[in-house]
C-alpha cells in the first residue's frame, strides 16, 4: 500500500488515504517492533500522579527537557512496596506503546523503584504500613499524659539544643518534677540501637518519657523511622511524647508515640503543668471556700436575727460572741495565708481580705447597707414586724438615724 501523499514522478498508483486508526496502528506496530523500545530502563522524576477508579495509575516521567506519559496497570500498581507520589526520583522499566485513543506514546511500566531520597521515602512508607497494620497507630492505644508528673525521662543527646530547651522550660514551668536524662545518639547508623537502649534504661524510673531531637536533615532524623525503635516506643510502660526536628518533620516514632509534639520545647510544655496556673488554681480554691464561708456566716446571722425575738438576751450575746471568735479565727488564718502568698498574688489576696471584711456587719455597713432596730434594740428584718407610726433606729456606717414610719407596703 502506498501511503506517501506526494509520490515522485512515475509512481505506479495514486496514494491511498489512511484512516486515523490505520495511522495509529502503523505507529503502534512500528514502536512495538523496535527492540530498542521494549523493556527500556529509564531514569526520571515523577509528576502528575493520578489514580483512576479502575486502579490504574497515570503519571509522567520527566527530566529537565522532556517528559513521557506512563501508565501503571492495576496489578503492578498494587504490588508496589511504596506509595507513588509526585516529585520522586525513580528508575523504571517498561515497554513503549502507543495509546491510540489519544494518539499518545506512553511507557507501560513493569517495575518502578525510587532512587536516593525516594528510597528513604519508600522505606518510610513501608515501615509505616507494616506498623499501621499491626495496629500500633490506633487512637485507642494513645495514653493520656500524667497531669502532675513526678519524674520526667528525656531520651535525647546529652549535648545539643533539645536537652537544653527541655530542661530550661521544665525548670520554669514545673520545678516540682525531677528530670532524668538518658543520653543517646540521635543520628547515624548506631542511633536506633542507642535510642532503644536509652529508652529501656529510663522507662521504669519515670512516669512519662520525652524522645527528642533538634532539627536536622532528612538523613539526620532518619533513626527515628527505625521499625524496632518504633516498636520499643509502642511497648513503653509509660506514655511517650515524641519531639523530633521541627514542626514539619514527621517520623515513624511520631505515629507510635502517645503524643506528638512539634518541637522539643512544645513537648516540655505539653508534659508539665504551669506553676503559675497552679498558683492561681490554689488561690481560686481558697477564694471559693472563703465565699462559701461568708455566705454561711451571713445565713447564720440572718437566722440569729430572726430568732432574736425568741432568744434570751444572754444566749444571743453568747452566740454573737462565739461568732466573733470564729470571725477572728478566720481572719487570723487568712492573714497568715496572705503573708505567705506570692507577690504576684498579693492583689488577689488583698481582695480576699476585703471579702472577709465584708462578712462582718461593719463591712456590710461600709458597703451602704443599714441595720434597722426597734427602740428596744431588736433587729427588724421584715416589713410585717413594723407598723405605721412606729419609731425605729437606722444604723449607718458613721452614726444612727431616728426615723418615723409613715406607711408600709408588704410584698408577698
Amino acid at each position, binding site marked *: 500500500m502506498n501511503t506517501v501523499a506526494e509520490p515522485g514522478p512515475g509512481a505506479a498508483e495514486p496514494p491511498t488515504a489512511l484512516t486515523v486508526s490505520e495511522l495509529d496502528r502503523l505507529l503502534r506496530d512500528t514502536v512495538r517492533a523496535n527492540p530498542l523500545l521494549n523493556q527500556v530502563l529509564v531514569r526520571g522524576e515523577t509528576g502528575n500522579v493520578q489514580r483512576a477508579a479502575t486502579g490504574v495509575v497515570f503519571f509522567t516521567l520527566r527530566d529537565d527537557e522532556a517528559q513521557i506519559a506512563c501508565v501503571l496497570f492495576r496489578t503492578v500498581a498494587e504490588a508496589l512496596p511504596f506509595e507513588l507520589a509526585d516529585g520522586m526520583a525513580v528508575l523504571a522499566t517498561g515497554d513503549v506503546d502507543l495509546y491510540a485513543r489519544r494518539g499518545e506514546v506512553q511507557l507501560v511500566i513493569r517495575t518502578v523503584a525510587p532512587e536516593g531520597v525516594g528510597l528513604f521515602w519508600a522505606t518510610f512508607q513501608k515501615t509505616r504500613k507494616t506498623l499501621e497494620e499491626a495496629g500500633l497507630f490506633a487512637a485507642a492505644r494513645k495514653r493520656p499524659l500524667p497531669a502532675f508528673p513526678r519524674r520526667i525521662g528525656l531520651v535525647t543527646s546529652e549535648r545539643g539544643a533539645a536537652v537544653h530547651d527541655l530542661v*530550661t522550660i*521544665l525548670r520554669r514551668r514545673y*520545678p516540682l518534677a525531677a*528530670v532524668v536524662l*538518658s543520653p543517646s545518639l540521635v543520628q547515624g547508623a548506631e542511633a536506633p540501637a542507642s535510642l532503644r537502649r536509652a529508652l529501656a534504661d529510663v522507662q521504669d524510673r519515670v512516669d512519662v518519657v520525652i524522645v527528642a531531637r533538634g532539627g536536622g536533615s532528612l538523613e539526620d532524623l532518619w533513626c527515628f523511622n527505625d521499625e524496632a525503635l518504633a516498636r520499643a516506643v509502642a511497648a513503653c510502660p509509660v506514655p511517650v511524647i515524641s519531639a523530633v526536628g521541627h514542626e514539619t518533620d514527621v517520623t515513624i516514632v511520631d505515629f507510635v508515640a502517645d503524643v506528638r509534639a512539634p518541637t522539643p520545647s512544645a513537648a516540655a510544655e505539653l508534659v508539665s503543668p504551669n506553676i503559675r496556673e*497552679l498558683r492561681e488554681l*490554689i488561690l481560686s480554691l481558697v477564694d471559693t471556700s472563703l465565699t462559701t464561708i461568708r455566705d454561711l456566716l451571713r445565713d447564720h446571722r440572718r437566722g440569729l436575727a430572726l430568732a432574736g425575738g425568741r432568744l434570751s438576751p444572754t444566749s444571743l450575746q453568747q452566740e454573737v460572741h462565739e461568732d466573733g471568735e470564729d470571725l477572728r479565727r478566720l481572719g487570723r*488564718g487568712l492573714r497568715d495565708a496572705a503573708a505567705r502568698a506570692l507577690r504576684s498574688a498579693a492583689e488577689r489576696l488583698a481582695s480576699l481580705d476585703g471579702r472577709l471584711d465584708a462578712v462582718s456587719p461593719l463591712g456590710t455597713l461600709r458597703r451602704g447597707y443599714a441595720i434597722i432596730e426597734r427602740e428596744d434594740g431588736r433587729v427588724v428584718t421584715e416589713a410585717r414586724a413594723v407598723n405605721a407610726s412606729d419609731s425605729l433606729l437606722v444604723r449607718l456606717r458613721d452614726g444612727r438615724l431616728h426615723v418615723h414610719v409613715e406607711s408600709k407596703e408588704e410584698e408577698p
Partner: protein
Amino acid sequence: MTEKLSFEDALAALEAKVEELSRGDVPLDRALAVFEEGLALYRECHGMLAQAEQRVTKLVAATDGLREEPLNFE
C-alpha cells in the same frame, strides 16, 4: 514518719475540702473546721510550689547497674 504529701495529693485534698464546703449542708462549726483544713492544705501546696527546685540527673552505667548522677546546666 509519714511520707510527704505529693503536690497532686495535696491539691486533690484541697479540692475535696472546697467541694465539701460548697455542698451547703455543712453545719457552721464543721464548715469553719473544713475551711481551716483547706487553708492548711493551701499553705502546703503553696509552700511546695514556692520551694520547688528542679533536680536534673543523668543516667550513667555503673558496675552495679545504672546510677543517676546530678547534672548541671550552665
